[in-house]
């Protein structure tokens, strides 16, 4: 009996020991990951310090000879860009390439005289190949937000999960953010002054994305915490109308030889004619209700009628007349669009073949 008791006590003790050890070792492995990631990150110093703009930022080393990936921000707008390595070593840096469509920049420390070698770095080729992770995946964010870390101090680390992998609808004040590809949105408050260019990694410290800037999300009108995936690759329409692909990997491969594309200022199509006359637009958010259709026009042929409400154009919600006109301006004559309209409390799908604009461009407004 006595023996049973003592062996029970022993086994409880053993299990307590095991549990405590697990936590201790688990934290240790986390610490190891941080030790592994931190040397691959740098602190950047450049323009700013006025109008609430920070003069510091973060960056990720992407090669052993000193190429650093960061976000394209105001701090690069200087002749005197400086970098502090994780051990505190200061360097002057020069800008190698900027890709505005992806909102990233490549900078370099060291030159022929003052060679930089054997730096710890993120394997970006591998990172670019990694498939996007799902919402709910645990992530770590490393950055020098608020410039809390100085010189050789390690970056501030935050833990969270990926909230979504989805398109960025960002705004800086009234301007749309240039990058419009997919981003990771995280549920930690990562996007603070100086955080841009920091690293978003998996729980194991593998690079996923570059922490973005401070932007408001147009969808919600709230601040958004997002990171640009290393695998970012978007297709844009060039000035000559031909599509072209830009990717972070391309920037990293071409380095000094990288040339950003020349893109048309605004994507102005030739305009289209539908024969739809919308209601007057006295307030900012008037829904696109049809007031009338021109007899014999494409709208008339498609049997659109007065009081129909246009809800979706090829699946895109047109919340108001402004959005409707904006969406339609991207089409060319002879294209067919799928309109979903609300009539008698039901949604109906209607195909509308677009026509050339009449000699005088007829706006879809009365």
């Amino acid at each position, binding site marked *: 009996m006595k023996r049973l008791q003592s062996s029970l006590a022993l086994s409880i003790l053993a299990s*307590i*020991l*095991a549990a*405590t*050890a*697990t*936590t*201790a*070792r*688990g934290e*240790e*492995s986390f610490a190891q990951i941080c030790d592994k990631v931190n040397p691959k990150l740098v602190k950047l110093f450049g323009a700013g310090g006025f109008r609430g703009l920070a003069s510091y930022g973060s960056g990720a080393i992407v090669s052993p000879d000193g190429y650093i990936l960061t976000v394209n921000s105001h701090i690069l707008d200087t002749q005197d860009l400086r970098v502090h390595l994780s051990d505190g070593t200061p360097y002057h840096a020069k800008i190698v390439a900027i890709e505005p469509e992806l909102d990233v920049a490549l900078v370099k420390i060291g030159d022929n005289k003052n060679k930089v070698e054997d730096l710890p770095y993120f394997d970006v080729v591998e990172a670019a190949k990694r498939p996007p992770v*799902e*919402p*709910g*995946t*645990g992530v770590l964010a490393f950055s020098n937000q608020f410039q809390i870390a100085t010189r050789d101090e390690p970056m501030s680390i935050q833990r*969270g*999960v990926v*909230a*979504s992998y*989805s*398109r960025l*609808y960002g705004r800086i004040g009234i301007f749309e953010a240039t990058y419009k590809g997919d981003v990771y*949105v995280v*549920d930690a*408050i990562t996007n603070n002054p100086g955080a841009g260019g920091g690293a978003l990694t998996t*729980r194991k410290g593998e690079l996923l994305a570059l922490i973005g800037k401070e932007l408001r*999300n*147009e*969808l*919600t*009108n*709230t*601040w958004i*915490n997002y990171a640009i995936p290393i695998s970012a690759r978007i297709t844009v329409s060039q000035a000559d109308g031909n599509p072209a692909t830009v990717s972070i990997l391309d920037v990293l491969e071409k380095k000094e030889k990288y040339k950003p594309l020349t893109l048309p200022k605004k994507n102005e199509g030739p305009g289209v004619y539908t024969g739809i006359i919308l209601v007057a637009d006295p*307030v*900012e*958010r*008037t*829904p*696109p209700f049809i007031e009338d259709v021109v007899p014999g026009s494409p709208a008339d042929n498609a049997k659109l009628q007065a009081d129909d*409400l246009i*809800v*979706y154009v090829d699946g895109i*919600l*047109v*919340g*108001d007349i402004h*959005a409707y006109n904006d969406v339609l301006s991207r089409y060319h004559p002879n294209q067919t669009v799928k309109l*979903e309209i*609300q009539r008698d*409390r*039901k*949604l109906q*799908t209607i195909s509308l073949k677009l026509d050339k604009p009449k000699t005088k461009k007829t706006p879809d407004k009365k």
Partner: protein
Amino acid sequence: MRRSTGWHWSIGLLALLVSLGSDRFVALSVARAEDLDELQEKTIKTAVRKIAPCVVQIETQGGTELVATGPSRPGAPPGIRLGTGPTTGLIVHADGYVISSAYNFANKPQAIHVRVPGHKEAYVAEIVANDQTRMLTLLKLVGVTGKLPVPLTVAKSEMLIGQTSLAVGRTLIGQVDQMPSVSVGIVSALHRIWGKAIQTDAKISPTNYGGPLVDLNGRVQGVLVPASPRTEGETAGFEWYDSGIGFAIPLEDVNRVLPRMLKGTAKEVVTLKRGLLGITMPQQQGQDEHAAPTKIASLAPGSAAEKSGLKVGDVIKEIDGKPIDNQAQLKQLMGPKYDSDAVVLKVQRDKDELKFELKLEGVVASYPQPFLGILPLRDDPEAGVEVRFVYPGSPADKGGVKAGDRLTKIGRAMPPAPVRMTPIANRDQLMDMLETTMPGLELSFEVKRAGGKKTETLKIKLGEMPDTVPTKTELPEKSSAKKALTKPKGIGPKPPEPPKKDDKKEPKKEEKKAELGFLKRTTAAADHSYWIYVPENYDPNVAHAVLVWLHPPGKNKEKDIEKFCESWQLRYTCEDYHLILVCPKAESDLGGWTRSESEFVQEAVKAVTDTYTVDRRRIIAHGMDQGGEMAFSLGFRSRGLFRGVATTGAALSGNVRDKTTGQPLSFFLIVGDKDPLLDAVKESNGKLKERKYPVIYREIKDMGRQYIDSRIGIDTLEEVARWIDSLDRM
């Protein structure tokens, strides 16, 4: 401390392992820690996938640009802009019913469409019910019957603080068939927001308002909403988005009232309201509600409390068997109640403990303010009230009262007893007496006619307070007997408190000559500043009205305040109407007023009333933009101080508060017809009138978002001055 213990154990373990001669165990435990993370991640994703089919995406068209918010938010005026993206909803009934946050519809969209996972086409949706207590909206998907999946509910009794909770939303994700967005947190607290909400530290924001808060089994704990314990309305609590302070309404509570909400249709929308007792309790300035006694001060006529037989003076001791001893506890227990809920109260009446069963009501009937139809002559030490002006067509006019008459006695028929006449002491006493009556009541007045010694008795049936301001020609210039510092001769029947004019007779006012003109002041603690303008013709024997200016956001510089005061100088308005301007300065240069600044505003007003002769019946809060919202808030919350609220280009945020007997409040709303807030201000006018507040509404032609100046609306400004001059109408 914990770390050192950890080390201690680790060392102990290390010793143990060394003695066992193996380090395989260490490797194993590291692997285990990672497994644990991986396992949690897997569980989270499984839970999200489980709930995903019940989480819908809501898209809207049209609606207003801006949604008015309260002054609690030191942000951009004059309201918030909702995002352009889709929002989230949760299926609660297979027949196509979706619950969501009222925030998502705060801009009153003209069309609503819902995308359901697994369904190719979107559905037209209509609002069929609103829950005003928990700020939820129920949608019906037109034409959908019996085919939608309904989530499992976590019972409230099962929920514990510290449990994992996942906030799920559909705003960020473009396609409804994809996995929704997720934020991971824990249950931080239960019974929050006066017993109505679960608190979580997951990131709650417009990306998931209306979506579910789910546990690790994919069962729903609650519906995510913005919420605040201090303010009401669709957007209250929005300022806490993504802060780690988020709220969800327990789905169990939603399910409980769902049968009522399902009865709604687009044409007859069901509105669930807060269950009201219909009582007021003494609210003293600055008193902590955790210390305030639960003694009934007044009962609204026809309310649940009055019908049940409760009486003024009863002290509530228990609600539904739960003992209470302060107003905060009462609020906590009454907070979750709906109209038509039953409640059992135990009250102390003298030495008895009595039990009452009540069926709560959603609205307390509002009665218009009673109106005799006169303006009194102020600062008059003689007994009774001299009539300064008789409103044409008013009950007093019809009853034969003339300007210059002195009302000396008042009587009320109490059948079968005959009319008993009691002497009228002064203006304040007569106002107090009339305020506790109702329109339609017949009163007798003994009137001493002007000039002669002739005394008559007139019968007057009280009417309703009109929404008119005497015109410039109507209003007699002589408003005061100019004897404010003379000891009053009139003695009331049984004066419950010394006449309020006593306050003004502190000797220091006479001894020290008061400073006049535009002056800068700081508070006693020197943490806030304000400006005052005292008219050059200031006379301590005339009680002055006080206009408290709550500037629009950013207009807190001295030059801005000077400009405001100049508007009031243009026609010597302050001089002619004996008006003191008090202009507190909001601390934020960009944002506007914060709720915490209301105490400083009151302190500034008190400093002025202590220094100058002030008519406490005519202190008004005046504001523009978000300052106007602050004026509404001050008016509703500090009834003991403010008798009027005048706003320019500001709409009410949140619900209108009920009238309080004995503390009348009047409104003057000004808006330019070019102001984007025009419709919202019109709506505010309607809401206030619905609650039977006296409201003057003025729309100024060709005016946008600006303050009245020499070029525009100056006549309205003078009308505001006349309105203030006539605020002691009765």
